[in-house]
């Protein structure tokens, strides 16, 4: 900023920076709180007596003899199979991104480059589809699966996939 007219007054800079700092605290606060709490025992993090227990780890000290504990992580990863969820999530994320990006790029290019009337209507249709709450389709997805199961097809697919 070499232009003198672009230089900002000190008070404005303070207000602007102060606002961003405040926002950062609001945005990151819950995560830092959870990160801190994740190293405490449950009795501290959900303390019924006093929320400051989560800060000072009173119960953590009593139960584990240490200020910090990694019991929570052991519970999540080992006892509750967090790793399996990670694998499932990764499969869903990778395939969704690849498929939707491929189809979306092709379709988006076509829509952007053409001025036909019908391309507008396809765009509108896509917008309305995008707007539908995801859960509205759930009961619709269940019906075909009922039918498929009813026809014994699902058992067939299960069989043929299972045997390979």
């Amino acid at each position, binding site marked *: 900023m070499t232009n003198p007219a672009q230089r900002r007054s000190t008070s404005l800079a303070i207000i602007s920076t102060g606002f961003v700092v405040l926002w950062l605290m609001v945005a990151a606060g819950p*995560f830092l709180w959870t990160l801190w709490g994740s190293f405490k025992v449950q009795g501290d993090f959900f303390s019924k007596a006093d929320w400051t227990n989560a800060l000072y780890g009173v119960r953590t000290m009593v139960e584990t003899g240490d200020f910090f504990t990694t019991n929570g992580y052991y519970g999540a990863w080992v006892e509750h199979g967090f790793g399996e969820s990670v694998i499932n999530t990764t499969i869903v994320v990778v395939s969704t991104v690849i*498929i939707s990006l491929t189809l979306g790029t092709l379709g988006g290019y076509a829509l952007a480059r053409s001025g*036909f009337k019908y391309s507008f209507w*396809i765009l509108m249709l896509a917008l309305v589809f995008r*707007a539908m*709450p995801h859960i*509205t*389709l759930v009961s619709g997805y269940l019906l075909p699966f009922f039918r498929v199961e009813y026809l014994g097809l699902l058992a067939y697919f299960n069989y043929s996939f299972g045997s390979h």
Partner: protein
Amino acid sequence: MPHRTFFWFIIPSLAAMILFIALPVISVITQSLHVEHEKVLISSENCGPFGCKQVTIVDVAATTQLRADQPLGQFSGFDNYTNRNHLAFDEVGLAWEGSENIGIFIKKLLNLPFYKALAFTLTYTFVVTPFVIVLGLAIALGVNALPKFAKGPTIFVSLLPMIVTPLIGSLILFWMIDGEGIIGASIQYLFNDPGLSLKASPALTWMMLIVYGIWHSAPFSFIVFYAGLQTVPADTLEAATIDGANRWQRIRYVVVPYMKPLVVFIMLMQLMDNFRVLEPIVSFASEASATSLSWIIYKDLTSDTQLFGSAAATSMLTIIGVAILLLPVLFRTWRDFSRTAH
């Protein structure tokens, strides 16, 4: 672009849309016109030493068989749409006749599940959306003015509320606003009222959900505005400065008009996303004070006897609601498109 080329480019997306959205919508419509089979009853006469008694029992085997043979249930026409759990025409009519003034009528209306959910969904959508746009623009302007080294980390932290799954984000907040949690206890201390609970009062619950919604969505509008700010032409800004515009005037008359298409885009996305609010209501367990249309569907599908017909009817009403909500934007896009069409 020739029709042929257009066709080949669009066909994969179009096929996916038809297969995964249009056909299921047809399926939802079909489902919404049906209702689950009632239990098959057998009545028989049971005669003992003290006379005969008429006994009715449920024929479990026949019920299961019937439900397996006709998984759709029985046809019920538009019953699903008009019954008490949806549009509730009868109840609304009664409430209208039996109320002295409009206030009482609205109160009765909001006791019906569908209208209760609709009220919260619309309030949430129309309060969160403008706040998100204004807050996002303010953050973007603030971050844009930061020194270069601070921008990267600031943007990363700013995106946190959006990156985290809504279910987890709202759960974290839910723990914090608990009477014994950090925010809940602080508010009790601040107002000097140990009995104050954010979860107990409907008004406070609504506010809490809305504040959560703003917190969650602000990063989205921030990042879009921030990207837009990078492309505001420096020449125009400089010209405005030479003409004597102060900082505020430059924002008001150069930056904001330049951001207008982005405002429309964010508004469109936010209207869609806020209308489907579900996770915070599940995480905050706020169904006593606030429900949403998505939540009603979710409840129908997860209850002990899954009410597919009822869920499908609510789904259809929700889709119609979204379409109505989008009409002004669609109309606007149509006008812009007609202007540029060949």
